[in-house]
């Protein structure tokens, strides 16, 4: 019996497209996140993460529903990777989740309920990339724990990958990315309307075909 052999790879291109301009801050930004938001508006053209109001509402609703029992919730962020003027940014259009094995301090997908997660992925009406994950810290504020960091490093280590953490009891939300051996909070914004469709495709280097993701 031979081992499986990989005979080729097709990488997904990064779209060069101006980010949405009609955006707003999340109402639950922590003081630090609010500072990052204001600084980004003043000095940059691009936020790291653009979260659709559809995705935001689903995350909020799921975390609020589990908050009375102090249970963590979790899901995958479904979106796209784009660039503008040399900066990579992340679009989160929707989320995918399912029943969970959860407690006030741990959360995982219930292995028996994975088909429901897959149904969410199949319902996405775009060619999604899992651009990160979200989970809640009910009453514990927003940060990445040791367990969260293991997940982030193992599965979401590309520059566009993010982790959204929400605390529905303290009414806080933050977005994080890996940086060096640790992590940093990154500016994100909410998009109420739709996202612009692709007009053209090019590499960050200026060619005609998109830059490949690892």
């Amino acid at each position, binding site marked *: *019996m*031979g*081992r*499986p*052999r*990989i*005979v*080729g*790879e*097709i*990488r*997904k291109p990064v779209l060069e497209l101006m980010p949405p301009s009609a955006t707003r801050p999340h109402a639950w930004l922590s003081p630090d996140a609010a500072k990052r938001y204001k600084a980004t508006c003043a000095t940059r053209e691009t936020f790291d993460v653009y979260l659709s109001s559809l995705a935001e509402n689903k995350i909020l609703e799921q975390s609020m529903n589990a908050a009375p029992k102090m249970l*963590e919730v*979790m899901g*995958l962020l479904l979106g796209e*990777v784009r660039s503008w003027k040399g900066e990579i940014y992340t679009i989160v259009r929707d989320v995918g989740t399912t029943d969970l094995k959860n407690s006030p*301090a*741990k*959360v*995982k*997908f219930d*292995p028996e309920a*994975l*088909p429901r*997660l*897959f*149904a969410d*992925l*199949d319902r996405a009406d775009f*060619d*999604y*990339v*899992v*651009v990160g*994950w979200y*989970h809640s810290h009910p009453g514990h504020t927003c940060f990445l*724990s*040791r*367990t*969260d960091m*293991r*997940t982030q490093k*193992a*599965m*979401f280590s*590309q520059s566009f*990958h993010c982790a959204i953490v929400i605390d529905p009891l303290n009414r806080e939300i933050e977005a994080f990315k890996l940086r060096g051996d640790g992590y940093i909070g990154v500016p994100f914004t909410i998009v109420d309307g739709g996202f612009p469709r692709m007009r053209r495709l090019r590499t960050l280097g200026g060619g005609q075909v998109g830059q*490949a*993701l*690892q």
Partner: protein
Amino acid sequence: MVPLPFRIKVKNAESGATVEMELENDNTIDEVIESAATFWNKEMGAYVVRKGKKVLRGTMALADAGVREDDMLELVPDPEGG
């Protein structure tokens, strides 16, 4: 008799990249996950692999799991939060 190799595609959900993989019917799901995870420099245990809405698990041979020529499998991250 020498088994005929066949090809499938495996998509990495967290990058959108797809590999074409050549295998035999008696290869296992674990071998598919291991090959793809190694190629993309990922931890094998951090993912589940799906065909449509079905999770494909472990030591099951591809033929027994119903994997056929030209099928598209997807490697989906299985995170843990704390």
